Every structure is written in structure tokens, then in C-alpha cells.
């Protein structure tokens, strides 16, 4: 009797799974149109904004009527002023006509900057490279869960155009999707005129409706990352379309370089994202999207688990424009999945990959001493760039009892010997990082130096915190028997292993024990996002044009409101919360002029140095690359503001040279060996 029952159960299970799976398929194929939903959202969001404005106004007025200290009164008055100004134009989404445009606008078009790239650039050919991160991307969507993977910059960040772009050498504004733009007198409203020829890669015209769609997406609850909702919701007062060709972005505060900063979010095509809804993540995972940029992904070029290729858009609308004509040269960019650095290196030496970035000094100085280099088939270049430094260092979790103590943190700064890592493990090819946001030229604090490795000073600081007794193993203890022992979480990679061992070895001299916890990528980030780490080795890539401290240090991002529970999923991984620092952070983010950005940045850097919030590690003020000689570059090699020679797409593939080189390799003919240093932008520290 038992057996038939089992068989029936198994059958039913099979049937159920069949139906369930077919259900799923049906769901993703089901057409979805968000037009009505979107229009309803515009209205409801406008109403929500207005209601909030009204209550805020009331609350502030009530507060001002009561007893207040001078400082608070000043703040509240400023707040009230802002609220009043916003109530003059309270709707977030506005649909207007071109006639409604203000008449007194001063339009500019930024056509006076130098060309980018080299006039000698030839179009054509295929660039072979690999998928960074050694893993196949989880999706090619630019937003939503897992979109921010290491491949995104290759198909979105470096490809898509904003209405206004920054010139990568002069840092001045140049046209992107907009051919002219204007800023209102109060500096908060930016008006753009969309280039009449701007087209999506599927041939459709770029219109202001696409921005309305994008802002709807950014504000929608369907998006799992709160970042866009917060940023677009708080930093903007609204978006307005003036017919199809004009639109206006209204920011909550005036910003330097406003047209670039305001327009610095990608635009998504209205028609393509019609199906943006609750299941959009699954729906758009592998759907190639139309782009405004020079390269598109075609459906047939996504070979899962093997490679992804980008193809140059046929008759790209900007191909003859001043700042774009010498860039985006190869016909195809092919990214292969290779799962191991060593294999990437071998493939490069065989010529299967055209480019390689030997960060590891052993690779650069020893393993590239090979015939291909001696005979000039492979060329090497070191390029000193000026780009926001990656803030690599040991981030301390201030929520941990010992690390909450400032003297302990100062001691840890003195006990971490990064200079030895630089001299030994990096062969002097790096500098000591001193500040959180370095590499922003004038904005960065130039004279601040971090605390150097010094056993005596470290021990003095620890003694101040009560750690005076050395245990049997030489590790310091305090009166309660707590040991100076900290776990450092880091990404398990051979180069980090050797850095961390060096740091551990040296810290022992100062009586500190570092326990090393090398983790894989996802486990590491999960732990940090939950704020469960003690110390973590990682770095943030700063974004142009301004430093940003708010995300990393504002108390709002540190704790769940009203509790002492660290807030998960924010970038304040130090769990740093200080109400006296908050106003400076806010001022820095809301700065109206470049001077304010600079002054508050310097002020913040000094505070963070004094409090020893983290242990700065290293920075590399250059990038270096080895490439086969058929990959050609402009005379200056690259642009000043770039952290990767590929990101501005100035290289090209010379087919004739490729043919010549391949023939030379057969016949044994050689070319002069080339190893060039471009140090026009290298900083000289001391001029005696």
C-alpha cells in the first residue's frame, strides 16, 4: 500500500513543479505597461511632496515662534527660507510647454575645449580583454539588485552619456546629450536643450520624456537600492519637461558645476523601460538596452559563462562631434571570462588578450622581462594620472568597545606599518595615503600627514587608554584583562595576504595582535554591510568632481534612529556618529561654491585625522599597462582624469601594425623595446 502512495506523491510533485515553472515563464513573458501607473505616480508623488512641504513649513514656523538659542534660530530661519522658496514651485514632476521657459536664460555650449583623443585614431578592429572580477556578471541591467558589479562600468559608466559631460583633461563642461544648457540666477535650476540629433541605438529620438521616466524609476519603490530614492528625493526639488526638447532639473541647493552635477544620473529610454514594474529585475536581467553611447550589447553577444561583447553602434549620432570623433574606435570590445589572474597573464603573453594591467610589482619588474617585451611586440607604459584616490585603509568599527576609544585608534595608526608594505611588498611603487579624499587637486588637503609607524608613540597612546601590561605573548592588556587584539576582515587575494601579514608582523612590535580573516567577495561585503566587522581593509573609489564625506560619516547613516543598533546597508562602515560633525558634513554636501567645498573638506579631514577614524594605507598616483603594439594611444597616452586607460576610450587598434607584428613574430624580426613613463601630471612634493 505504501508504494503506490509514494509514486502518486512523486508524480504530483513533478506535475506541480512543471506547472510552477511554466507559470514563471508566463509571468516574464506577460506584457506590462507602466504608463498609467507612472502617470498616477507623478500625481501622487507631487501631492506627497506638497503635503510634506506644508507640514514642514508649519513645524518650522512653530519652532521659530518659541524659545530658541541663537544658533538654532539661525538654522531654522535658513531652513524656513528654503522651504518658502520651494513652496513657490512645489510640484516635483512638471509637464510644461517650450513657451513656459524663462526668457532670461544664458545658454552655453562648451565648444571651446580641446579635442579628446588623437586625430590619427583609426576605426575598426576588435579589442580583446577579460571580465574584471574573474566572474561572469550577474546581470547587464544598470540599476536594481546586483547591477553595481565590476562589469557595469564597461557597459554603462564609461559608455552612456549625460546631458553635460566633464572634459577629462581640463575638467570643464562639454556637451553630451544636451547641445546647450543654462543655469538660473539662483544657481539651483539647470535647463538643458537636448541635441536634436541625439538618438538611442535603436534609432529613436532622445526626448525629455526619457528623463521623466528615469526619475520615476529612481524614485520608485520597485528599486531595491535605497540610494537613488534618497539621492534623487533629497537633492532635487523637481524635474520639469518643456516639450520634448527641453527639460529642467531643480536642485535643493546650488552647486558648483551645476549642469554636470545635476545631470549626473543616467537616462533610460521611456519605451524600453515601459515594463519597469515589480518584477523588472528578472525581466531586464539579460535584455540588451538601447543606449545613447557608442557601444551596445547585442543579445547574441551575451555568451553566458564565456564572454560578453560590445559592438559599436552603427552610425552613432555623436560620431562626428568634436569631443567624440577620435574616441570609441574599435568596432568590437570583447570581454572574455577568465577566472584567474595567472591565466589572464598567460593569455596576454600569448596575444589572446590585447591589454594587461600588471599592478603586482613582481609581474611588472620580473615576469614581463620576456622576449615579447625585449623584441618590442609588447610595450609597457606608466602613466601618472590625477584622479580621486581609492581610499584604501583599515576602517575601524567605532561601535566596537575598544575601537570606540580614541587613544586606541591613535595607537593603531602608529602601530600599522604601511610604509614597510610600500617599501617591501610594493617595491616603493606607491605612496602613503594621508587623507580620506586624496587626488581631488585643490579640494584635497595637501599638507595633512597621517600618523607614522612608531612603536613608542603607539605604546604611549595605548598606555593612555589603560593598556600597559604586556601579556606572555607581548600583547598589551588593560586592568580588566582586555587584550589589544583585533580581527581584520579583508578580501582573500594573494597580494592582500602579504600586506596583511606584514602589518600583523609589525603591529606585534607595538603590542597589538591582528587576527586576519581573509574572506571571499560576497561574504566580506555582507559582513561589512551588517557592520559586524572590527576592522576591514577596503577602499572606496572617490567620484568626480567633489569629495563626499556624508555617506561615510553622517550619524544618520550610522545608527538606526533612536537606538544603538548600527544601521545595516549604509556606507558609514566606521559607524561614526557625532552630532557636532554632522553640520559640517551637511555643509560639505550642500556647498554652493568651490571654496566652501574646499574649506569644509579640509576641516573634515582635520577632524577625522585628529580623531584617527581610520588607518590610511596606500595610494598609487599612476596606472601602468602592458599592451601589444597594435593597440595605439594618443601622443600624451591618455587623459589626466582617468584611473584606467580604457575608461575614456581613446585607444585604437591598428590593423596594419597588427599584421606587421604577427609577421615579424613569425620571421623573428624585432622592434625597439619600449617602456615609457608619462609623468606630466606627477606631483613634485618638495622643491628645494
Amino acid at each position: 500500500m505504501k508504494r503506490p502512495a509514494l509514486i502518486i506523491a512523486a508524480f504530483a510533485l513533478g506535475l506541480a513543479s512543471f506547472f510552477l515553472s511554466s507559470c514563471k515563464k508566463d509571468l516574464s513573458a506577460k506584457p506590462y505597461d507602466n504608463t498609467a501607473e507612472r502617470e498616477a505616480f507623478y500625481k501622487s508623488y507631487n501631492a506627497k511632496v506638497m503635503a510634506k512641504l506644508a507640514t514642514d513649513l508649519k513645524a518650522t514656523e512653530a519652532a521659530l515662534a518659541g524659545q530658541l538659542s541663537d544658533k538654532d534660530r539661525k538654522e531654522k530661519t535658513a531652513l524656513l527660507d528654503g522651504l518658502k522658496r520651494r513652496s513657490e514651485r512645489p510640484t516635483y514632476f512638471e509637464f510644461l510647454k517650450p513657451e513656459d521657459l524663462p526668457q532670461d536664460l544664458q545658454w552655453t555650449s562648451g565648444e571651446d575645449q580641446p579635442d579628446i583623443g588623437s586625430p590619427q585614431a583609426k576605426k575598426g578592429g576588435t579589442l580583446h580583454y577579460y571580465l574584471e572580477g574573474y566572474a561572469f556578471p550577474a546581470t547587464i541591467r544598470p540599476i536594481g539588485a546586483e547591477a553595481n558589479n565590476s562589469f557595469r562600468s564597461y557597459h554603462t559608466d564609461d559608455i552612456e552619456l549625460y546631458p553635460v559631460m566633464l572634459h577629462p583633461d581640463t575638467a570643464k563642461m562639454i556637451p553630451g546629450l544636451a547641445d546647450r544648457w543654462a543655469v538660473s540666477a539662483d544657481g539651483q535650476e539647470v535647463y538643458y536643450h537636448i541635441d536634436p540629433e541625439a538618438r538611442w541605438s535603436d534609432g529613436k529620438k532622445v526626448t525629455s520624456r526619457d528623463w521623466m521616466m528615469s526619475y520615476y524609476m529612481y524614485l520608485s519603490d520597485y528599486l531595491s537600492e535605497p540610494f537613488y530614492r534618497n539621492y534623487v528625493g533629497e537633492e532635487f526639488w523637481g524635474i520639469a519637461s518643456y516639450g520634448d526638447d527641453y527639460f529642467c532639473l531643480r536642485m535643493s541647493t546650488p552647486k558648483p558645476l551645476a549642469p554636470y552635477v545635476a545631470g549626473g544620473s543616467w537616462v533610460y529610454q521611456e519605451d524600453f523601460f515601459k515594463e519597469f514594474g515589480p518584477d523588472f529585475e528578472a525581466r531586464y536581467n539579460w535584455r540588451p538596452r538601447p543606449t545613447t553611447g557608442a557601444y551596445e550589447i547585442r543579445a547574441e553577444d551575451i555568451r553566458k559563462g564565456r564572454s560578453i561583447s560590445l559592438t559599436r553602434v552603427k552610425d552613432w549620432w555623436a560620431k562626428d562631434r568634436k569631443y567624440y570623433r577620435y574616441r570609441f574606435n574599435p568596432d568590437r570590445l570583447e570581454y572574455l571570462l577568465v577566472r584567474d589572474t595567472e591565466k589572464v597573464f598567460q593569455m596576454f603573453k600569448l596575444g589572446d588578450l590585447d591589454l594587461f594591467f600588471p599592478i603586482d610589482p613582481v609581474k611588472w619588474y620580473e615576469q614581463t622581462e620576456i622576449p615579447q617585451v625585449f623584441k618590442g611586440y609588447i610595450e609597457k607604459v606608466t602613466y601618472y594620472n590625477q584622479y580621486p584616490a581609492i581610499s584604501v585603509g583599515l576602517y575601524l568599527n567605532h561601535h566596537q568597545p575598544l575601537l570606540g576609544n580614541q587613544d586606541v585608534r591613535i595607537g593603531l595608526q602608529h602601530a600599522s606599518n604601511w610604509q614597510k608594505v610600500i617599501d617591501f611588498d610594493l617595491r616603493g611603487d606607491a605612496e602613503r595615503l594621508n587623507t580620506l579624499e586624496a587626488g581631488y587637486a585643490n579640494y584635497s588637503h595637501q599638507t595633512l600627514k597621517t600618523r607614522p609607524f612608531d612603536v613608542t608613540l603607539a605604546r604611549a597612546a595605548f598606555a593612555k587608554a589603560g593598556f600597559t601590561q604586556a601579556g606572555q605573548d607581548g600583547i598589551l592588556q588593560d586592568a580588566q584583562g582586555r587584550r589589544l587584539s583585533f580581527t581584520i576582515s579583508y578580501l582573500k587575494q594573494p597580494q592582500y595576504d602579504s600586506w596583511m601579514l606584514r602589518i600583523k608582523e609589525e603591529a606585534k612590535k607595538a603590542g597589538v595582535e591582528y587576527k586576519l580573516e581573509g574572506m571571499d567577495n560576497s561574504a566580506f561585503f555582507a559582513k561589512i554591510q551588517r557592520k559586524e566587522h572590527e576592522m576591514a581593509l577596503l577602499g572606496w573609489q572617490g567620484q568626480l568632481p567633489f569629495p563626499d564625506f556624508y555617506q561615510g560619516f553622517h550619524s544618520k547613516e550610522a545608527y538606526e534612529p533612536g537606538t544603538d543598533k548600527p544601521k545595516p546597508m549604509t556606507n558609514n562602515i566606521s559607524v561614526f556618529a557625532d552630532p557636532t560633525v554632522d553640520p559640517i558634513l551637511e555643509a560639505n554636501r550642500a556647498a554652493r561654491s568651490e571654496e566652501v567645498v574646499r574649506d569644509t573638506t579640509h576641516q573634515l579631514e582635520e577632524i577625522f585625522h585628529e580623531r584617527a577614524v581610520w588607518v590610511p594605507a596606500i595610494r598609487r598616483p599612476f596606472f601602468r599597462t602592458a599592451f601589444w603594439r597594435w593597440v595605439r594611444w594618443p601622443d600624451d597616452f591618455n587623459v589626466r582624469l582617468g584611473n584606467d586607460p580604457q575608461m575614456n576610450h581613446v585607444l585604437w587598434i591598428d590593423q596594419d601594425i597588427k599584421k606587421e607584428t604577427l609577421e615579424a613574430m613569425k620571421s623573428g624580426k624585432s622592434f625597439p623595446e619600449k617602456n615609457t613613463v608619462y609623468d606630466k601630471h606627477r606631483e613634485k612634493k618638495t622643491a628645494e
Partner: protein
Amino acid sequence: MTLRRLSRFQAIGRGWWAFRIFVFLLVLAALDQTLVGRRALAVNYNGEWLFPAFQQRTYTEEFFGGGEDQEVDYRVLAKRFKEENKGGKVIMPPVPWDPVLDSDELQKRPLVESEGKIYFPGGKEPFSGYAVQYWPKSQDIKLRDARFRSGLLQGPATLFDGKGEFAGKQTWFEGKLVETSAEDGGPVAAGIPWVQLLYKPAPPTLAEQHFLGTDSNGWDIAAQLFGGFQVIVKAAFLFFLLIYGAGITIGCLQGYLGGAFDLIVERIVEIISNIPFLLVVIIITANIGRDNIDLMTIVVIFAAFSWIGISAYLRTATYREKARDYAAAARVQGAGTARVIFRHILPNAISTIVTLLPFTFAGLATSLTALDYLGFGLPDSYPSWGRVLEDGTSNLSSPWIVCSVFAVMVSVLLLITFIGEAIREAFDPKKFTTYQ
């Protein structure tokens, strides 16, 4: 009987020799800090003799009149005493390095200049590679960093000012300056000695007492191999206690009691033997954090999976011996279970597992090494052959790493195998007993 076995063992030449060498190695391993370590064996300071290697107490730099409140580096102290020449004396162990977390300063190898060309030390082969010059006034501040091809400057060179900061660049071609960004063209290259910096992994040198060189962390390989051997011996001692204790007890009980007990334990054994061992180690490592693991944890995990083999042998042997008349006789005389098992049956069943002993040791050594090689074993504060091996295979361009660890591993395992072979032969029952 045992004496006869011993004399038979001694008669097997190869095994006996291997055994004596192995015992010698064990004695060496027991000498510990006397042979390998960063602490001095003896220091004569102000006429007083100190023995830091044999004391719990750590001596700070301040103690010896130095500046900092950290443990003194005796290698530096030795140099200082020599320079001061005031009768201070430091006697270091033959290998003056700790196995782990003790890296050397950068080594500098002066290059030879002759007739305008730069040669490797020895003056025969022209130098190709990277070399630096130091400011003549201070030997620590770089002046120029440049590349050579066949003894001549070629390619980019970097200039530094008197403070060691970047001052400009030069480009050379076949020994001639082609281009420079320094205003005065930079200091002249000729006349200032060139030095090659030897980064880790550094080849074996007698001067720095890295007899087998260093690995890519800059840690001494000889010291690591020595420390690794110590760890294996320590682990083996614990391991034998655990698995032989558990294996013998459980195996004998299974064989002697039989019945339901045997049945249940056999099922447990089946379950354990089906758990993938490596996975368990990985899970445990991930949960408690690699740096919190110690030797005991690893050995216990190993033992939890390894007693099964021993117990299986003992179980069958006990089943067999139990049926013998002497076991029945002992029982009739009123001996309890424990007495029958341990006094009467075990001595007759033990010979099979004694022969296993050396092979268990070899098995443990390879498993520990393999685990470290894969990166799941002991934390970095333990010296380990596995990590040296891993380092060697990923730095094949530094052959001294992989060669030394390979040679040591093979020879130790070979010794063990010889011993094992001899023991097996000495304990072979066919040599003594005849069945009737």
C-alpha cells in the same frame, strides 16, 4: 618475543638507519629555540650574562640602552655590540630567524662597474634589470632608480631629491642620456655605485644567514621547514594518543561485546566515513575564523575521522582472538571485560596496528601539508610546509623555495616509509608462529 622483534628490526639495515636518523631529527626538533629563533642564546651586557632564548621574560630595547619600548632585535643588537666594541657579546642560534612573522630588511647587492658597464657581482655577466643609486651622503636615500640592458642604462630612470621625493625623470638609450625633465639634467650617473635591491623572495645567502633563502613574505625558509617539522611532530603525538586511544577502545569493545553494540557503532562509523572531511574543515574554519584555529582543533578534527581505521582492525582481530581458548580460560577464571580485553586479547592483536604507526605519521604529515596548501589549515602564526610549498609553486621563478621544501618533505616521508617497512617485517607473525 618483543626483544626478538626488536633485534629483527635492528637487523634490517635500511630501516634501522632510517630510524636512527629520524630519532636524531626528533632530538633536533626538541632543541627548538637553541637551533632556530630570533632570540639570542646568550647575551653578555655590562659584564652580565643573559639567556633570552631560555627565559619567559622579554628584554626591551630600553633595557639595552636603546630607544624604544619593544622587544629588542638581537640581530641588530649583535651588530651594535660589534660596532661599539665594548665587550658586549651576542650568541645567536645557527638559524637566527623565527619561522613566521619575522621578515628581514631589504637586501642590497652592490654591482660592479668596469669600463663603463655594470656587471653582476663577480664581474663576468653584464647586468640587466633594475638598480638604484643612493645619495653619497646618506646611504638610505635614493638618488636614481633605473633600468639596465646588457650592462648599460636603457629606458626610464627616476630621479629623487635629497629627501627621497620625486625630482624628475630621465630616459636612457644604450648608456646615453636621451631625455630629462630635471632642470640641470640630474646628477651624473657615473662614479656613484649601483646597487641592486633584492626583494623577497630572496635567494639563499650566507651573509644574512638565510641558508635556504626567503619566501615571498620575506620569511626564512630553513626556519619554516624546521618549525613545520616541529608542528608535525607535535600534531602526531597528540594525534596518536587520540586515535589509538579511541580506536583501540572502541574497536576492542565492538569485537568483544559484539551484538547490538557492534551493530550500532558500525552504523555510526559508516555515517562518519561518508562525511567529506575537507568540507567539515572548511565549514569549521569559516565559522570560527582561521586565526582562531589552533593545532589542537585541527588534530581533533583529523582524529574524529581517523580512529575508524584503527578500530576496524582491532574489531576483526578481537573477534578472532575472543574465540580462542585462552580468552575463554581468562573469563572462566573470573576476569572482567576490561581485564580480558586489555591484558589478554590486546597484546595478541596489537601487532597489526603497530605496523600502521609510521604510515599514520606519514599520512598526517601529508594531510596537514595539503590542508595548508589549500589555505584551510592552521593560521599563519604556525609554520607550515604546505604554505611554503604553495608559495614555491606560485613563485616558480624563485626555485629555492620549492626545491628546499620538496627535498625536505620527500626525505622525511622516505625515512618514515623505510621505518614502516622494517617494523612491518619485524612484526610479521609468519616469522614466529606456526598454526596447527
